[in-house]
Each structure stands twice: as C-alpha cells, then as structure tokens.
C-alpha cells in the first residue's frame, strides 16, 4: 500500500485490504493463525495471503492437505483449545466438503453442551461468479450457511469492510463465516490510512434515495449502485442497502428504509429458489406489507449451474440493466 495522499488515504485493493487485516490480527494476537489449502508457500489461491508465510512462518501460516473436513474441524478444535484460528476454504463450492463440520459441530456444540463451550473460529471463503470458472467454482452458496443458527455469516463488499470485518469476527466468541466475492479481489480504491475494525451487525445504506429500496450484498453491490445511478438520471431515486451481515439480518435498517420508500427490490447472486432474497422479501412482507405501494421484486441468478463461456456466464448473473428493468416494473413500467 503505497502512494499515500495528503488526505490520509492510501491506494489499495480488496485483496490487499484483507491481507492487511490478517497481518494486523497476526501481529496483535499470538493465538491467531491462518490455515488452509495453499495459503502458505503458494500465497493463497486468490493471492490473499501472499507474503505472510515469509513473514510469520509455517507454524502460523499453515498449509494443509486437501482435506476440507479435517482442517475446518481442526480449526474448531483449536478454537476450543484456546486459539483464534482463521481457516481459509478456497471456495464456497469446496466448503460442501466440510459442511458437516460447520453445521454439525461449529454451529451446535455450544447449544448441545448447554453453553459450556463456545467456538471463536473465523472461516473465510471465496464466493461468486464472473471469472469464467464454471460450475464448480462460481456459485453463491452462502445462503446455505445463512440458514444455520449458531454461526454468523458476513459478506464484505467494500474495501473498508474487507479491511475491517476480520478483526471484529476474531473478537466474536462464536463462529463467523466471511464470504469474499471472488470478483472483488482486484477492486482498487482509496482507504483511510487508519482503517480498522468495523461492526459486523448492521446493514448500511450505501446510497440515499426516497423512491425505492434496493437491497443487496457482496459482489452485487456495485451493479446495484450503477443501476441506482442510471435510475437517478431517469428520475427514480433509489436507496441502496448493503446487507453486510447475512445472518443475522439487520431487519431494522431494511424495514425503516422500505417503510419510507414503499418499494423494494432485492438483488442476490444466489439462485432464486430458497435464496437469501426470498428470506429478505418474506420478512418485508411479514412486517411492512401495509407500507408497500408495489409488489416486492428480486433479481437473482438464472437457475442453471454457472457456465464457462463468458456471454453465457454473464447471461446467468444479475446485471445492471436487469436491475434497472425490475425497478421500473415496480413503478408500473413494462420495460418499453
């Protein structure tokens, strides 16, 4: 992170912001270590941990065998044993191989033990499409984890959240899953020199507006902001909410906004059926139905495994234009 400016910001990327967060946590707390496939010598599949192996050595930047279940389970055990592990799972698709450990152990042990044990574990994984990685590396399966009581699920979309969510997650006494959108790693921007921990509880309004609420998270945030900008030129002022925490959902922020705008569209890269968007819409329907002026709507991925070919992959994903069209439908516009 060079090119320091007088404004007290530095140029960085989403990837570098996460790396800085890991590094800071390692320096601050000797109980913290990073473990996962190729996080060490290789530098991380998405190069997030590049350089950390040289700085901290193999004991604290631990390359694991390709054994998702045992290295996640080992993270759970190490957390029970007094450590503060950060476990990296290469992608959410691979996390299905360790879902047993996450769902049956990490999420249950506190409850099964009547509150005797807690598991201060952080699991980071990449999610999402856009890199032409096809159907076993591109899915947005975070909703599967957002379904599970006993864990917290967060999705940083901004540089500040990439930089700041990890420290707060490590302070949390319970398991926290951090979903990093693979399409964001290269995203550049300015960040405050003293950027640090941020809350992991609240949804945040990323753009103010009074006509419609657009609710999204992770990689879809920027498409949604682009859509909001385009809509503004057409006289529709959209408020954009970044969920940030997928479990628990910050209902208060969502409902306050929707009650004001009286319209909502949810943008979610997951598949429509059983999606996080479905949950958000259900909650708005349950609690703000009589405040609504239009049916709730959502923009999700097409229900196909994500294909390789670029044009096909893009056709499967939520796009800025689809968001614009969907919003206009909320105002009775049948899209020309």
């Amino acid at each position, binding site marked *: 992170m060079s090119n320091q400016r007088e404004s007290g910001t530095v140029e960085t990327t989403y990837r570098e912001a996460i790396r800085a967060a890991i590094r800071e946590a390692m320096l601050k707390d000797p109980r913290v*270590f990073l473990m996962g496939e190729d996080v060490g010598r290789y530098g991380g599949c998405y190069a997030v941990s590049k350089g950390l192996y040289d700085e901290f050595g193999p*004991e604290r930047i631990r390359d*694991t*065998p390709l*054994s998702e*279940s*045992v*290295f*996640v*389970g*080992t*993270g*759970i*055990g*190490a*957390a*029970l*044993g*007094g*450590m503060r*592990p950060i476990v990296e799972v290469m992608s959410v698709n691979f996390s299905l191989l360790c879902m*047993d*450990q996450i769902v*049956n*152990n990490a999420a249950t*042990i*506190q*409850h*099964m*033990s*009547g*509150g*005797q*044990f*807690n598991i201060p574990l952080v699991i980071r994984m990449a999610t999402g499409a856009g890199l032409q990685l096809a159907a076993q590396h591109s899915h947005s399966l975070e909703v599967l984890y957002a379904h599970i*009581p*006993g864990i*917290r699920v967060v999705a940083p979309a901004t540089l500040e959240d990439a930089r700041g969510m990890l420290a707060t997650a490590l302070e949390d*006494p*319970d398991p926290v899953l951090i979903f990093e959108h693979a399409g964001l790693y290269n995203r550049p921007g300015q960040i405050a020199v003293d950027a640090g921990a941020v809350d992991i509880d609240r949804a945040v309004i990323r753009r103010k507006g009074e006509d419609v609420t657009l609710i999204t998270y992770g990689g879809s945030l920027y498409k949604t902001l682009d859509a909001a900008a385009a809509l503004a030129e057409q006289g529709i002022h959209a408020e954009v909410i970044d969920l940030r925490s997928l479990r628990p959902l910050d209902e208060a922020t969502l409902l306050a906004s929707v009650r004001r705008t009286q319209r909502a569209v949810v943008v979610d890269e997951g598949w429509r059926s059983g999606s996080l968007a479905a949950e958000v819409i259900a909650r708005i329907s349950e609690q703000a139905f009589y405040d609504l002026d239009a049916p709730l709507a959502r923009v999700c991925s097409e229900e196909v495994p994500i294909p390789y070919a670029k044009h096909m992959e893009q056709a499967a994903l939520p796009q800025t234009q689809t968001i614009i069209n969907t919003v206009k439908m909320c105002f009775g516009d049948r899209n020309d």
Partner: protein
Amino acid sequence: MTPMTPVSQAHALELLQGMVRIRRFEEKCAELYSAMKIRGFLHLYIGEEAIAVGVMQALRSEDSVAATYREHGHALARGLSMRSIMAEMYGKLEGCCRGRGGSMHLFDAATRFFGGSAIVAGGIPLSVGLALADKLQGRANVNACFFGEGAAAEGEFHESINLATLWKLPVLFLCENNRYAMGTALERSESETDIHLKAQSYGLKSEAVDGMDVIAVEQAAQRACDAIRNGEGPYFLEFTTYRFRPHSMFDPELYREKAEVHAWKEKDPITLFSQKLLVEGLIRDADIARIEANVQDEITVAVEYAEAGQWEAAEDLKRYVYSERGHHE
C-alpha cells in the same frame, strides 16, 4: 496360564468398580427407557467397558477426551458425575448439558470432555484441533479420541490420522472395534478389515489390543500416552470388543447370530477380570458384593436426583445458540 494381574489390590478394585459402575448404570438406563423416563436414541456400551475404564487410567485432568454417541461409559470413567449424566438422560436442567444434549451429546468443561458426537468420525477432527492448540501453546497434553470401526469408512478418519501424523500432533486415536457399524458387519463394508493396519499406513504407531482385557487396555494406553507426551506424535490403538446389547433400543438384531453374541459374552470383561482376581486371591467375593452395593447406592441417588430435577424454562429455548455477551472473555 495367563500372567498374574500386575496391579495392586486397590487399583484392581478401582478398575473393577469402574466397569461395574458403567454396566449397572446402563442396565438402569435400559430399564428407564422402557419406563419412558429416557427417550430419543439410547446406545449402550455394555460389553465394551474395559476400554473406557482402561484408557482413562492413563489420562490426566489437563488432557482432553472426545467420544461418540455411545459415550455414557467414557463420560462416567472420565469423571462426570453419574447424577449429572442421569439428569441429562432425563432431559432435566440439572443434566450436564441442561438437557439440551441427551444421551448422545454429553459434554463437560470441568473434565475436558468434548462430547458426545453423533456424526460417525465427525468428532475426530476436534481432537486434532485440540491437539494443534496444545502444540502451538507448548502444552504436553494428550487428546484422546474414541470412535468405532465404522469411522474407518468415513473420510474424516483418514484425513484426521493423516494430518495428525503429518503435523506430529498429540492425538491418541482409540478405535473401539465392536465389529458392527450399526448392523453392517466390518467384512461387509471394508476391503481391508484390519483397522490398525489401515492406520499404520499413515506412518504413526499403531497397535491392536484385546479390548475385553482391562489390564491390556490400560497398559497399551499408558504406552501410547508416554510416547505422545514424549513428543513422538499421535498413536493409534485398535481395541477388539463386542457390543452385547442391540445397537440402540430400536434394533431387532437381525444381522447377527445369537451364537456369536453368546460366544462373545463368554469374554465379558467384568466377569473375566473379577474371576481372575478371585482366582489369584487379589480380591474376595465380599469385595465384589461391596462394589455392587456401592454402585447400586450411587445409581439410586442418581435416579432420585434426575427425578427431582427441573425442566428448563421454555423461555430459555434460544439461549446457548450464540454466546451471551459478557459471559466469555
């Protein structure tokens, strides 16, 4: 002629009482199950008591233990109070897990007893992680992990042994081979039925031990713990044993012959051990009677405690899903 029992009278009595305690406790549990005081699944350890009792002799309070859903014996032998286990079976607030775990999920922070896992092989990685925490924090503890031979069919068994051996972690792998994974015989599910050889292929020390002989179990566990504390990495013990009772209270036992069950009952670890001690003159009939009476008293107290226990308030349902802020550091 088998060698003389190489332990003191006091220790022999301790081992015998440990096994009788588990046997009688579980017989009572079966009775209470029929009386509908205990519900859910109930997996009895009867026939396998020598393993939990023998292994625990080699463990210290700072060591950790993880076990399976057939873990009443391990919990008792580890030092959880019988009354807190019984109250847990009843689903009472006074249970070791406030009634939230039940028979299959006994946990106890005070004795470092980490369950009670009902996913076959799912508890093994926890011991690997506890061992990693010990290693990273410079503690020479042993992390004991019990599982059945059915676990050898699961990936987590192999992943765990590989990782623990690769990283030289202080894990004591304890395979209780009772020959049936629920109702599936070992030879019907494994191409190589010698579990200790499978483990050995990962490059750690591995032994097969007579799991019906409490002294053999204790000695093997001591050997293994010495090696682990000495920094030699993980150790694998496979105990041959047999489950005298059905898999759970719902099992009609269609998959095994009565003659086979009978033949194994001839090797009852409690009968064999007590007869040997009697023949050697190390104990007398009166000692056995006293043990039985002590255990009976303890069970009576445990049942009374569970009966008198309270139901946790339903308003507390949502507690212990997440930590209560301020409760933990």
